[in-house]
């Protein structure tokens, strides 16, 4: 690992330092927004938003190379596509309750298909893998500034609306009765998910971003008692996964995105196996409370 730390200081491999900075910054947004994603159970929607990002990246690269729109950075395309996807998926899940999962799956595939077609028509060679699974070699100054700005935006919106999002996730019906515009805040939350996914598009890629959105928060949820604690622990875990994965990938010359995602996945599995075994160990005869409740219900049902 010492090589990794030395390499971080090496002026010739600047991309490594940039990746670390982006990873640490993005971890804050991933921990915070990921916690909402996990407690509100919208991982599938978040996954669909992430995949739709490819449509924007494809369109941006095509515009840059085929149309000469140099200003249209792939991250801007990613952002636009993510926000459009978030809005469409939000409308679908608000208004088409019954077949929500089907619509999510369809949009997921449509987004990918548009992206791949754009990339196929883009002059020169573009490797879709770079965007699907991350490629830290394309990270430069510009990417750092975009990530920093988005990160601040996401954290600011959450800070200003922490309680509202909490209410939305915990009991949307009650929140609506207390005057909260549930639809608006739900769409806003999905937009935050969209912005967050884009933060790590170069480090872990859009396909693997969902791992860092859900896994740290899912582990954190086991350890804490409050939503804000969950956010902090999830952000720290996300940092650990990013730094650890980056170090391992550098040391053994492995692709960074998959290494980070797999590391997170292994920790997740271990934590859940331990938790499941503990639960099984604790399971004894039913407690008195439960037994009394059942007896009460039984006599009333008679």
């Amino acid at each position: 690992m010492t090589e990794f730390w030395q390499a971080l200081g090496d002026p010739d491999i600047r991309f490594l330092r940039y990746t670390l900075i982006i990873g640490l910054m993005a971890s804050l947004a991933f921990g915070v927004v990921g916690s909402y994603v996990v407690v509100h159970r919208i991982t599938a929607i978040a996954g669909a938003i992430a995949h739709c990002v490819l449509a924007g990246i494809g369109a941006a690269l095509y515009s840059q190379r085929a149309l000469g729109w140099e200003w249209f950075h792939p991250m801007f395309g990613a952002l636009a596509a993510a926000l459009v996807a978030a809005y469409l998926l939000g409308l679908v899940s608000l208004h088409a309750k019954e077949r929500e999962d089907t619509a999510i799956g369809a949009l997921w595939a449509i987004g990918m298909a548009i992206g791949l077609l754009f990339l196929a028509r883009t002059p020169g060679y573009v490797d879709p893998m770079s965007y699907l699974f991350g490629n830290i070699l394309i990270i430069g100054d510009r990417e750092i500034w975009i990530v920093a700005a988005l990160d601040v935006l996401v954290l600011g919106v959450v800070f200003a609306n922490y309680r509202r999002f909490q209410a939305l996730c915990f009991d949307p019906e009650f929140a609506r009765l207390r005057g909260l515009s549930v639809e608006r805040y739900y769409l806003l939350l999905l937009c935050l998910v969209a912005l967050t996914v884009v933060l790590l598009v170069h480090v872990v890629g859009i396909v693997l971003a969902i791992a860092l959105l859900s896994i740290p928060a899912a582990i954190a949820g086991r350890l804490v008692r409050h939503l804000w604690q969950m956010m902090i622990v999830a952000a720290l875990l996300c940092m650990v996964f990013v730094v650890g994965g980056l170090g391992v990938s550098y040391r053994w010359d492995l692709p960074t995105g998959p290494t980070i995602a797999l590391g997170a996945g292994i920790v997740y599995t271990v934590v859940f196996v331990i938790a499941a075994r503990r639960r099984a160990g604790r399971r004894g005869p039913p407690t008195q409370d439960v037994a009394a409740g059942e007896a009460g219900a039984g006599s009333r049902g008679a």
Partner: protein
Amino acid sequence: MDAQAAIAIDDLWFSYDRAPVLEAVTLRVDPRDSVCVVGPNGGGKTTLLKLILGLLEPDRGRVRVLGEPPIRARGRVGYVPQHMHFDPLFPISVLDVVLMGRIEQGGILRERRLRPAAMEALEEVGMAGRLRSVFSELSGGERQRVLIARALFGEPEILLLDEPTAMVDLAVESRLMRTLKGLHERMAIVLVSHDLGFVSKLVNSVICVNRRVAVHPTSEISGRMIEEMYGSDVAMVRHDHRCAVEEHRHD
């Protein structure tokens, strides 16, 4: 006269698709009334509640809550949903749940001002000692009381409770009843329940909902009648399909 009624419903009809769920419903709940809504599953109890809360719009007829359309009156109505609808893994403290009661009054920075009132609401239901506890670790009855505190924190003039005694044991039930008894001096209480034994000492009329609605004063139902009908130890009312306006009998 509507201005004085807590809830006034006039010739209300409602259907989700084509088959009417509620037909020609007319009822009135006064400001200090305590009423219980009973009826079979699928009879329209929850639908009636949602209409009163303005979550549904009637096909025909009119609902007025505190003299206003339901959506405008929401801020003055406290709603207590069933406690088992919640995600058991959600990391949220008792105090956080109660603070939801005034979600419309601003962000975390202004929250300090609201805390004393939240504490007061928790004290009222006997849960002030548990404010740092995690909501999902509470028992069913404790959760129910926290949800009542959340509704009280909004300083309602009407309290709507949906099946507060579902899945809680008898000791919890009587504790809950004491809590509600203390409240009914201050506000109208509407209780959805299929458990008339629990409510008969608390409410002064019973609203039977089974597509149509019939209102009985409790004097008709409680006491001798309830014992005759079910025996004193049976707490559940059998409201099956005889519950219609035309021939509303309890036999």
